[in-house]
């Protein structure tokens, strides 16, 4: 077991941030913490990287106890905080060399680990970190977190504020790192990134709602979801909410996702209801649930 969290609770001045969290991450696993802002993701990261002490419970990282073996953990983990935390007045290569030195290694020694990522930012290696774009900053931060070949990598919202292309690239990099045997715990507020993880934990208001593989979570979902559009989108949500057997409705991209109380209800009844309300060119069809649908339901 690479990370094992047992009944951890943490509160800031009586405001609970994490409540009774238990989760386990296997070695070489890409594990995602999925949840909105303020769910407690960063607090969990800080507990596991020994930056905070839990009020209750305990945990091990790379088989070291977070309460007693602080030094060992700090040598064994790589941590990339949510906020860009490198030296803005140092260049790419200076930042990397600095982090290599303080971890007692050199860039050359572990170059194979970061090569894929570093070649992408190498053309700018004499540029100051503060002058880099969001995507390049994240790549550099990842290089710096990897330079000492950590056993466990903690990435706190690494793709927040990064463009879609760079986000995709970033996740491909994580997959390659996983193949090299590094355990990765990554948090993200983006539900679409959840499917890229081996297993995910859905977390909200300091509580873990579900832990499973993304597919497992989708498969376990019982309700049928309909996607609906019409020519009057702004009225559609209001009208759907007044349908007698309405359970939930929310905007989802160009569609509105609708769930009925009755799982086997006749969609034609709904179609007629909408027609009667004056909607035209109605599309109403079943769709496969996504992590976001499930999250909204939890």
């Amino acid at each position, binding site marked *: 077991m690479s990370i094992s969290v047992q009944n951890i609770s943490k509160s800031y001045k009586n405001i609970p941030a994490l409540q009774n969290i238990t989760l386990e991450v296997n070695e070489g696993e890409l594990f995602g913490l999925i949840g909105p802002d303020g769910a407690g993701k960063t607090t969990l990261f*800080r507990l596991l*990287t*020994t*930056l*905070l*002490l839990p009020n209750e419970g305990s945990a091990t990282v790379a088989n070291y106890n977070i309460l007693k073996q*602080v*030094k060992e953990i*700090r*040598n064994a*983990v790589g*941590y990339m*905080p949510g*906020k*860009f*935390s*490198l*030296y*803005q*007045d*140092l260049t790419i290569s*200076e930042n990397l*060399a*600095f*982090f290599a*030195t*303080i*971890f*007692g290694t050199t860039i050359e020694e572990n170059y194979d680990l970061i090569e894929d990522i570093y070649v992408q930012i190498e053309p700018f290696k004499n540029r100051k970190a503060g002058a880099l774009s969001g995507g390049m900053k994240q790549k550099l931060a990842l290089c*710096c977190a990897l330079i000492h070949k950590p056993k466990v990598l903690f990435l706190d919202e690494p793709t927040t504020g990064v463009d879609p292309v760079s986000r995709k690239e970033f996740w491909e990099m994580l997959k390659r790192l996983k193949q090299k045997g590094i355990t990765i715990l990554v948090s993200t507020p983006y539900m679409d990134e959840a499917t890229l993880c081996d297993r995910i934990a859905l977390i909200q208001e300091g509580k873990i709602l579900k832990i499973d593989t993304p597919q497992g979570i989708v498969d376990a979902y019982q309700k049928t979801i309909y996607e609906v559009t019409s020519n009057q989108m702004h009225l559609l949500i209001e009208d759907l909410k007044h349908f007698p057997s309405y359970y939930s409705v929310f905007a989802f991209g160009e569609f509105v996702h609708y769930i009925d109380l009755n799982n086997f209800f006749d969609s034609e009844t709904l179609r007629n209801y909408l027609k009667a309300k004056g909607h035209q060119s109605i599309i109403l069809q079943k769709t496969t649930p996504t992590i976001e649908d499930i999250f909204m339901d939890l």
Partner: protein
Amino acid sequence: MKRFLGFIKKEFYHIFRDKRSLFILFGMPIAQILLFGFAITNEINNVEIAILDYSKDTESQKIIQKIKASPYFHVANEIANEKAIESEFKIGKIKAVLLFEKDFAKKLQTEMKATVQVITDATEPNIANTIANYTQSIIQNHQSQKSTVQKNTTGVVIQSRMLYNPELKSVFNFVPGVMTVILMLVSAMMTSISITREKELGTMEILLVSPLKPFQVILGKVFPYIFLSVINAIVIVSMGYFIFGMPIKGSILLLAVESILFIITALSLGIFISTISNTQQTAMMISLMGLMLPVIILSGFIFPIASMPLPMQVISNIIPAKWFIIIVKSIMLKGVGLEYILKETLILVGMTILFIGLSIKNYKTRLE
């Protein structure tokens, strides 16, 4: 050790790439020395004065010659009557008028007493005071010379001698003062700012989750400033010595050791400030309000401690700068050895240990 050196290298990058801190580090000491040396001074040179001589006899002329011969005064013009005094002052060019009464020499002969009035423009009280003192001493000097010649021993002749700084040069006061201020500024303020900057930018979070031990981080942050402060101390002392002719009567080695001690005191204070503040701005405010003002006002640099009200005198004891100024003055001007400044040295050592202890107690190896 390699980790430590890597850290120091990084720290120098920060300093040399930040134009503001470079200016504070090297521009300030030079600017302050020159400012205090040339502009802010109580000494007078070539002050324009006027003479109103009602008697115009040999005795008054002799005194006028003496005044003219001194470097402090320049006799701009001689005026005819008392009405002209007011208008002369209103023009503002002259700062004082010397008024000799009628029959000056005769009175001096017969009554052994004659009056010279020194009328000064006291809109600038310090200068007026100095002018009065200087003219007085020139006249007294003239009198005493005369009386010894005539073997006339009536009356008491006061002879004062200014020890260690016979010409009362203010430069001898401000070189130690500026040195103290600058070392305090560089060491305490710059280190506290540079440590809190890591907290503010979030890099402290990464440094904490690294094998670097807290004392390595702190030492790494502090070391470059020890080096820069020593350079600053050398620049200030040499400027005082070469440009303003400030003597260094005592041992240079002792001065260097005491300076390094004070630098360490200031650094430990800076570290302590950084442990209690989370942003650069708080660190800067605490340094400026909590350190700079007391250093300037309560250390005896500008205002003599002996003339402060008692509560202030008591408070001044906790200002490290006070003790360092005493040490520097003693070494440079009096040329004393360690045995005479042992008390002050020990106080600084004690303060350093206290601040380091408080910092260790307050230092957080975690985020809260």
